[in-house]
């Protein structure tokens, strides 16, 4: 489908980009990283921006560098660049792994890490619908109902991006620029459980980059499950980071998931249970069972909540195994 006309800007500096956002009507302008998400949305007529502002010309958003005990990853770096970065591979192999699991090689050469962090939620009745006119508009389309949860009073679209759970498990911070200056927020505060608007990025703001703290003695893993690897988003993805303690035990487990709700989630209940359990391998399975019991999961894409929960348990188990966690100790 053809795109509708719009004015295209390719600013050379962040200040210019912010100026353009301010001078044009923020509600009618959109920021574009790689374009893989917003151009698809525009083709489906889910977005009709008057102005599109590309971030690919901003050199300050395209660097990956170590800054003391942190690594800064610019929001406009492509997923391929993130995957191939020596710094990312060395300090945060799970971010490189997650970047390598997004879509196909072509999409990874185009899509940016900032785009993945700000990715919109997905739903069979929203952005994968060829004939939207055949259904009453849902909440996300400006209507008054949800087709997924029939009696639901809100939108239940799913958050499915691969990178955010890894960043959540690494306690990353996001740098966000606005006309009056920059702000830095923990990534966990960036998301909200709302299918219509899953993050708190305001219309006049630009995501500049991600700061990930370097931690020694951390083991980590990222596991995801999707129906077709290169096309589908994960219907469950699990990122785990655990610190090795000097006494052979592990500490500070951080587990985050994608694909279950309208935001990526930290599994705090499971983390607490794991932290306090120092038992044999059999009990780890019980701990996982107990830790994921209370997560609310709704039926999406014809996949039942119980199957999704089972896949979640298997992925957590696989992830802990990859981190060499056995019976409360690091092997």
């Amino acid at each position: 489908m053809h795109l509708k006309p719009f004015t295209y800007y390719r600013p050379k500096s962040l200040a210019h980009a912010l100026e353009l956002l301010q001078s044009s009507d923020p509600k009618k302008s959109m920021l574009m990283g790689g374009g893989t998400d917003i151009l698809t949305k525009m083709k489906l007529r889910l977005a009709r921006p008057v102005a599109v502002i590309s971030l690919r010309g901003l050199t300050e958003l395209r660097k990956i560098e170590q800054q003391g005990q942190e690594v800064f990853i610019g929001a406009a770096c492509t997923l391929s660049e993130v995957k191939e970065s020596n710094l990312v591979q060395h300090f945060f192999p799970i971010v490189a792994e997650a970047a390598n699991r997004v879509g196909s090689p072509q999409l990874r050469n185009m899509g940016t890490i900032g785009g993945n962090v700000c990715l919109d939620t997905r739903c069979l009745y929203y952005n994968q619908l060829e004939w939207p006119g055949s259904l009453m508009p849902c909440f996300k389309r400006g209507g008054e109902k949800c087709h997924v949860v029939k009696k639901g009073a809100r939108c239940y679209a799913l958050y499915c991006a691969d990178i955010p759970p890894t960043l959540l498990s690494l306690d990353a911070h996001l740098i966000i620029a606005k006309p009056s200056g920059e702000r830095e927020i923990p990534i966990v505060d960036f998301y909200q459980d709302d299918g219509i608007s899953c993050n708190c990025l305001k219309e006049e703001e630009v995501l500049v980059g991600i700061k990930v703290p370097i931690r020694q003695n951390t083991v980590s893993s990222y596991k995801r499950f999707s129906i077709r690897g290169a096309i589908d988003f994960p219907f469950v993805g699990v990122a785990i980071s655990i610190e090795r303690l000097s006494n052979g035990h592990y500490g500070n487990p951080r587990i985050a998931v994608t694909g279950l709700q309208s935001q990526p989630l930290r599994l705090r209940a499971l983390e607490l249970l794991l932290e306090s359990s120092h038992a044999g391998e059999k009990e780890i399975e019980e701990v996982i069972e107990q830790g994921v019991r209370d997560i609310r999961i709704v039926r999406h894409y014809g996949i039942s909540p119980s199957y999704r929960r089972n896949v979640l348990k298997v992925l957590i188990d696989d992830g802990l195994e990859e981190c060499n966690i056995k019976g409360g100790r690091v092997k």
Partner: protein
Amino acid sequence: MKQSIELHVNKCFYDLEIESHRTLLEVLRNDLGLTGTKEGCDGGECGACTVLLDGLPVLSCLTLALDAQGRHIVTIEGLAHDNELGPIQTAFMEEGAIQCGFCTPGMILSAKALLDRNQKPTLEDIKEALSGNLCRCTGYTKPIRALLKLANK
């Protein structure tokens, strides 16, 4: 509003007047007549519209033509020289790795990007490189065989 741009496609320069909302795919096919690049799903899933931008495979249906300015674009038409097919095309023909041919241009360009960076790819490398190109008729066995044969030459 139309803008003047210069595109560098298959080592030729083209001066064009185009609107900002036009995709690289539309410009290649409709303005330059390079119809080897195919329009499949038009939504970033099938890989039929794959072209090389500065040596990397990208989807031309989700690339604005304006964004391709100043970059080297290679389409399937750029692989043959003086009426002689390129090595990947010849290998595909020899192995019969073509049926309807719709996915072939994209698949060959993905393969070219791989072989340009890694002359001895493994089976896994080849599968990964072709994972973004959907074939619905002949399958992947023959293209993979053609590329393995090239890699072992």
